[in-house]
């Protein structure tokens, strides 16, 4: 299963709900305002660092760049993909679930 999360973890419960429902080994792609969850040094960073051990976590690079953030700020274990990588993730997983 590929889960997409597009909400800031500081504003909404979408990420938390995703993390508590996803099955071990699932892939999670953070897009739009969801990319803030991938940042280190925040109040939610420890939660994400722990999640990155149980899930394959990715962040959409164009959304990260738009928000003025770069790879150096990410929590360890989070990978960056572009729109083509997003398409590949969709192709690799039989089902996609959006947490809105």
């Amino acid at each position, binding site marked *: 299963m590929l889960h*997409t999360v*597009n909400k800031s973890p500081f504003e909404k419960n979408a990420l938390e709900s995703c993390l508590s429902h996803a099955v071990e080994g699932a892939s999670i792609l953070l*897009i*739009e*305002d969801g990319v803030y969850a991938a940042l280190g040094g925040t109040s939610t960073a420890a939660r994400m660092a722990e999640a990155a051990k149980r899930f394959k976590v990715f962040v959409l690079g*164009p*959304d990260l760049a738009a928000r003025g953030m770069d790879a150096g700020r990410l929590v360890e274990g989070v990978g960056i993909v*572009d*729109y*083509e990588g*997003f*398409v*590949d993730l*969709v*192709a690799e997983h*039989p*089902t*996609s679930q*959006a947490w*809105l």
Partner: protein
Amino acid sequence: MKIGILVNEGPYNHQASDTALNFCKAALAKGHTIWRVFFYYDGVLNAAPRAEPPTDDRNLFKQWGELAEKHGVDLVVCVAAGLRRGIREGDTAPGFRISGLGQLIEAGIQCDRLVTFGD
């Protein structure tokens, strides 16, 4: 691979429409088929026929239309959700058609993947 897309939000107010467009372009570039894009909830507003975004900003209505024209992507607007919000048969931006919710369920059945973009 045959991919179906669901767009839940209108253009500009939420990023859903932008992200869906960028996803569709990348999928087409990689040789996948975008079998259908279904517009539901406020997503029907992507078919608004008389919008005129600022000239220094992107024109999402036109970009969707180009996707239909150049790649034959089937852009379907939900008739019921459209009527509630003023988007009607025969009066949409170019490239869109109006039909029922069954077209979304059909996309779920026929496509290898269904990806949702919303708020």
